[in-house]
């Protein structure tokens, strides 16, 4: 074990300050230190995307990042994307279009999709499939996930137009 490091993170808008071993992975900081259990662990090797979070505007797999590497950065997890009183359109669309089954991949999937729609508010089906290829789902076969993301994109674009 090495000397503990002083780490400061902003998670879902809240500043968190703690001492951690250099080897502490971000996913464990979130899940076990901060009790933010939305992001899950599916593979430990960056393949499945169940642990996806947003760090300073980029989608990141938190299972292969040391917390120390995220020091000083802003992190958003599914818990910061929307809750009972302010559901994100993706959260409603995944329910409406049956974009989930066991739910284990869903937090990472929605977190990634939210970022994707920020990067590209009008993605084609191929762009969604490519943009979501880092997130594995074992239950849905993706068809309804794609549909959910398309529906959310349409809703978000309509809302944006109405606001302008």
């Amino acid at each position, binding site marked *: 074990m090495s000397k503990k490091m002083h780490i400061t993170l902003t998670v879902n808008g809240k500043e968190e300050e703690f001492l951690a*071993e250099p080897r502490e992975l971000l996913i464990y900081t979130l899940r076990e230190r901060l009790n933010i259990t939305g992001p899950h662990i599916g593979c*430990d090797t960056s*393949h499945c995307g169940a642990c996806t979070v947003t760090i300073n505007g980029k989608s990141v797999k938190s299972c292969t990042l040391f917390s120390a590497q995220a020091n000083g950065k802003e992190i958003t997890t599914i818990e910061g994307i929307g809750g009972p009183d302010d559901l994100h359109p993706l959260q409603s669309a995944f329910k409406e279009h049956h974009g989930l089954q066991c739910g284990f991949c869903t937090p990472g999937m929605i977190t990634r999709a939210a970022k994707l729609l920020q990067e590209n508010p009008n993605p084609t089906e191929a762009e969604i*499939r490519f943009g979501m290829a880092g997130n594995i789902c*074992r239950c849905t076969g993706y068809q309804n996930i794609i549909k959910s993301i398309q529906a959310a994109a349409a809703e978000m674009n309509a809302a944006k137009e109405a606001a302008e």
Partner: protein
Amino acid sequence: MKDEIDNRDERVANLKGLGCSRKRVEDARFTQGKGNYVDDIKLDGMLFGDFVRSPYAHARIKSIDTAAAMEVPGVLAVLTAADLEPLGLHWMPTLAGDKQMVLADGKVLFQGQEVAFVVAEDRFAAADGIELVEVEYEELPVIVDPFESLKSDVVLREDLDPKAPGAHGPRKHPNHIFTWEAGDKAPTEEVIANAEVVATESMYYHRTHPCPLETCGCVASMDKVNGKLTLWGTFQAPHAIRTVVSLISGIEEHNIRVISPDIGGGFGNKVGAYPGYVCSVVASIVTGKPVKWIEDRMDNLMTTAFARDYHMTGKISATKEGKITALHCHVTADHGGFDACADPTKFPAGFMNICTGSYDIPTAYLEVDGVYTNKAPGGVSYRCSFRVTEAVYFIERMIEVLAIELNMDAAELRRINFIKKEQFPYKAALGWEYDSGDYHTAWDKALKAVDYDGLRAEQAQRVADFKAGKTRKLMGIGLSFFTEIVGAGPVKNCDILGLGMFDSCEIRIHPTGSAIARLGTISQGQGHATTFAQILASEIGLPADSITIEEGDTDTAPYGLGTYGSRSTPVAGAATAMAGRKIRAKAQMIAAYLLEVHDNDVEFDVDRFVVKGAPERFKTMKEIAFAAYNQAIPGLEPGLEAVSYYDPPNMTYPFGAYVCVMDIDVDTGVPDIRRFYALDDCGTRINPMIIEGQIHGGLTEALAVALGQEIAYDDMGNVKTGTLMDFFLPTAWEVPNYETDFTVTPSPHHPIGAKGVGESPHVGGVPCFSNAVQDAFRPFGNRHTNMPHDHWRIWRTANELGLHD
């Protein structure tokens, strides 16, 4: 409390009962990151346990030194077989009548086998401890091939008397586990010997793994003050786990509470009992603290619950016109180091004897030999009923090979051999009685939907273009027609560890007209909380939105055998309907009392009982519910509750017709799935949205298995596919859009006619994808190539057929 809704259609719609694509009640928590999976559980003082695993596939253990590990700060205990032996817990019974080491007892039989269990304050300290446990091994010869195993002098299981019979009868060799037979051997051989046409083929259905996104794990918490053990875990059968834990630990069953929280997919992986569960329980007893054990992905792929690994040889005979006369099948089944298959006791090869498929085959014989090797134990049914995927793959390949032998169209060959609608209930040559089916209608609908003749014409043109050098892409048309056998099962022939495979439902109606129902099954993504409420809504006339469904807590749910083999709807769904009918029967008496008429003078209508011939006189179920708690009705107990334990009279037999159209680049071996059409008949459809979702998912798991997913070993018994880098899970990029369709042929014996659907797409999908690949190469002389058809193997097939010359 008068019901405002008088329109009957509106009243039906308001219930959100059978046939409604009701949105899932589970989704709110999952989409907001508020699911509660086992690794989310955090208890005061909870410890973390993890395994020292064997790097060798076959080795004797000379010594284990735990001293250095115990020096690591945070490490509290290191358990070995020597620690478990005084408790009698160093071995445990498997679901297949064998026994399995919990921790290596003198030797190891597969790579990754559990050798010691390190218990520490957190997972990092446990990992540090694992590094410092010194195990001295003496390597032994490794056997990874079951045919070699049956010839070898190397005895894998030294704990077994080589001459003594096993759980399923006599053994031919120390590494042999069982021989299991179905059908008539001599008549089958005679028909085949004298047949006009015989096709013979050997095929290997490779080893793979269910690989749910959430791995297996548990939290064991022994409350020494009250003598109660609580065990949370990824259990597809929580009640069976409770009974097993009680039997092997000696803790009385009423002092054990097993809870399956949200489960992140199962697909068969979470049916069995694993050493991690036993070690966590022991560690909690030893330390007096809760102990969590969670597999990492490599542990999961290497050690818990492989699927398939069947070497199958078939002979199928027919007349010159293509009428099938007999089928012979031999299987050499690789079970790994222990026989830990998850099958009903009397079926060591599961329901492999459904391998006559959807065809009227008068004579058949099946023989399965189970064999030990130095591979991981398991043999679960990965998204299928017990070994049904193997059976359907076998027959759907044999049909294709027979079509080649007959120089006949494979769709037509199927059509002339289908069991006819009027033959149901149909008694198959290998023993099963198919409940209902209408195969010709389904097949015709499927072929018409894809314009089958047009596809064949296009394919012929493509072959001509390829030969003329105009294209490097071939076109394959994959066909499959499957019949599943699900819903185990009748207690008279299906049990696991002596527990009959019934299932259960208990309902309590609350005074204000809402309800809670608890079942013996457990959802792993199938949406039980949504669909079982729909069954009840239609049965008892209360809206599905007013019914809570609860599963997975053995202290509250009635005993059941759990969720796998598509048994939830056929068995627990039936129990739900039957319990609902008990509620309705009592409600009828209450309604008659309130309406001051005879019981037989009222009848049920959607959400109420009405006086026959006087529809304006009625009592809604909501009113009846309240009356059950506030009226003193002569001859009736207060309250409105019911429980049903349902023993199904037969299995159910869902079926379907699938067509896949694929382009294959012969120079890269990359297949491009152009179209996939899936027609499923699962009997009565409870929630079409959920059915469709199940089909998309099952087809995608079929695509994975057919086109690349495998657990591969090298000659030393090293697992070559231990991470998601090597083990193929398709992403959104590789998966096509599917077209779904249906026919409805209700099960005649199920209370609501439903058959189960979750596994059908996997069962029918694997042969369909495989047949598409093989069909593309049929014009060039291909007869059969083994799965998985990954890019390299497809390229190799093209190469061997001279298509690169």
